[in-house]
């Protein structure tokens, strides 16, 4: 083997220009794959971080909610949810994996701003949550791919009537000025009498809202909106929400409908004086790699305890994440294939020329007693060596370029994000990507040498010796 390597290495040096060109093709392939792979890895990590911060790794629902619950969330409430949370939290397997476990209530309804100056209403998709848990979830950043954490005090456990709404909903409800939102147009004055706005809400509901608002703490800062929803029993119910601010969800449809409120307020709206339930129990894990194990354990736990519960991961709850992962994975595969084909042809060409130039040498060493497989091995080792050297140079360059870009302070807005995040290429943190690209290209170069090496091995000795 030492002799094979020695001869292979010296032959590469002997044709240094040709070897350099071929090695450069391999290095360029490795560079492209690693830089794009690093970029894709960072996108995946960023998307995962975004999702896990928002909806956790796993969400537990009542059976059937995932497929049918959006039509009537209240009908799929988990009763005695605290017992279920205790069971999960104290389980010896899944308990230690959990970073945050928190209940949520989804609801739909109509949000209205019936203040004196504006009379506007809009359907909403709401979520009731525990503000302190939400803050803790926002701090999860296992991969270092999230936005820098800044505390958000606009919602608090101490203020059960204060929430946030999507920027689109704030715009539609005429809260631009009240929330001091930039680039936000005022509502147009409706045709007819400005003082007699055409309310879209029945007068009895509006009166109910006004009465509820009067009963609430009217002295709080921020505009107030009224939220109307059907209770689990089917009766209309209204609560008043102090809008602590608006936030972008990254998707216009969600921006136009989103309302986040304290869990207790959502439960009051959906369940009234009845038993307060939740539609989901959100689990944020310490490490994403625990997700399959945690999910399997939860399924077993529910079965053992005869709980009518179902568990879903963030990928299932946000199909956009899966679509982005699939799209970028396909692009990465396409680039890898193109690079593989380029390397294949470059190495085949180089090795074919090497075989032609060294035909007499092949005849000589065959006459000395080297077997056909010895000839094959010689050229395969040369292909592997050129692949390994090229891929190593490409990997080193990718590492340096990624490190330089990561320190350059560039930013970009990834899909699903509303604000810019640092642009990073996660090359160094992805050893599997590095090893995979390196080994893949070295393997392609090795395989590319098979055909020329086989041709060399099959040369009749006397013909090879006669070759000039």
């Amino acid at each position: 083997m030492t002799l094979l390597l020695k001869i292979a290495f010296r032959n590469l040096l002997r044709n240094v220009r040709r070897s350099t060109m071929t090695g450069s093709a391999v290095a360029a392939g490795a560079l492209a794959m690693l830089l794009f792979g690093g970029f894709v890895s960072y996108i995946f990590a960023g998307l995962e971080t975004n999702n896990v911060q928002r909806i956790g790794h796993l969400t537990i629902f009542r059976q059937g909610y995932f497929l049918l619950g959006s039509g009537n969330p209240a009908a799929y409430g988990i009763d005695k949810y605290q017992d279920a949370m205790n069971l999960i939290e104290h389980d010896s397997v899944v308990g230690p994996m959990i970073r945050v476990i928190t209940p949520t209530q989804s609801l739909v309804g109509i949000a209205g701003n019936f203040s004196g100056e504006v009379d506007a209403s809009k359907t909403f998709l709401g979520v009731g949550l525990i503000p302190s848990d939400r803050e803790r979830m926002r701090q999860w950043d296992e991969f270092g791919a999230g936005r820098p954490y800044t505390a958000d005090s606009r919602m608090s456990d101490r203020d059960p009537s204060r929430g946030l709404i999507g920027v689109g909903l704030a715009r539609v409800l005429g809260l631009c000025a009240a929330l001091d939102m930039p680039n936000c147009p005022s509502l147009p004055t409706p045709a007819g009498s400005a003082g007699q706005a055409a309310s879209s809400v029945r007068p009895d509901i509006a009166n109910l809202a006004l009465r509820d608002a009067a009963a609430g703490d009217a002295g709080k800062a921020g505009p107030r909106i009224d939220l109307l929803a059907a209770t689990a029993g089917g009766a209309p119910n209204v609560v008043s929400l102090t809008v602590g601010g608006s936030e972008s969800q990254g998707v216009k449809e969600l921006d136009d409908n989103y309302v986040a409120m304290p869990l207790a307020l959502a439960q009051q709206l959906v369940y009234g004086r009845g038993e307060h339930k939740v539609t989901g129990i959100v689990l944020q894990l310490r490490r994403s790699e625990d997700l399959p194990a945690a999910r399997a354990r939860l399924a077993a736990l529910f079965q053992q305890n005869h709980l009518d519960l179902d568990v879903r991961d963030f990928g299932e709850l946000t199909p956009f994440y899966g679509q982005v992962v699939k799209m970028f994975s396909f692009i990465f595969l396409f680039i890898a294939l193109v690079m593989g084909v380029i390397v294949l042809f470059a190495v085949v060409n180089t090795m074919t020329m090497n075989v032609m130039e060294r035909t007499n040498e092949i005849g000589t060493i065959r006459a000395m007693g080297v077997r056909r497989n010895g000839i094959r091995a010689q050229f395969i080792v040369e292909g592997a060596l050129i692949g390994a050297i090229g891929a190593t140079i490409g990997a080193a360059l990718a590492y340096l370029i990624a490190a330089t870009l990561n320190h350059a302070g560039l930013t970009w807005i990834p899909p699903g994000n509303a604000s810019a995040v640092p642009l990073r290429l996660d090359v160094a943190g992805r050893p599997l990507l590095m090893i995979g690209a390196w080994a893949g290209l070295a393997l392609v170069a090795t395989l590319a040498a098979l055909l020329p090496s086989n041709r060399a091995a099959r040369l009749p000795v006397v013909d090879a010796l006669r070759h000039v």
Partner: protein
Amino acid sequence: MGKTDPLQAATAADNAVVRLSGVAKTYRSGAVDVAALKGISLDIPYHRFSVVIGASGSGKTTLLNIIGGIDSPTGGTVEVCGQNIGELADDAVSDFRARNIGFIFQTFSLVPVLSAYENVEYPLLLVGMAPAERRARTLEMLEAVGLAGQARQRPNELSGGQRQRVAIARALVKGPQVVLADEPTANLDSATGASIIELMRRVQAKSRTTFIFATHDPQLMSHADETFAIRDGALIDHRSGGSQ
């Protein structure tokens, strides 16, 4: 040097290192069959300095290639060191060559990326010799051909004569039964050729290896113990003489 009938000579020798019986070789050239060897039978005894002579295209090189197992006859049998090499599979023939046969080529045919030392060492690696013994044998061989001082030099840094010395050392280093040399002095000037012949004669006398040459170099012919003359692929003369 007495003149003998080639057919009788072929069957008379009991101690033949090479025994050819009715060896024929026909090449296909387009639609025409060209007979390079026409049923040659001969015995070449051990430890002799044997020469195959003949004009260009007479079949000398083909004969040597067949004896060396790097070409196969289209008829007849070839025994080398008692082994019918026609019975061996390709890998076995390679192994047989690695152990028993050394080659010296007209164009030296050294591996260009290896030094003189490494070229000479190469055959010993093929037979799996231990490193210490390998090193000792290689240095001894380089010393014997007068190239101990050029051990680290690559072929392109050596003269033609030096390259052929390296080729001789490479052919002999493993102690083969037979060394086949095809026109070993053809690419050398007469003085260098003479020194190379002298070297081979000296080494052969010491190692008792059987040398078989294909040549039309009169200098080389004059050193022959056995001379086989072929014309148009047929053995036409065998002269035996000199010491065994």
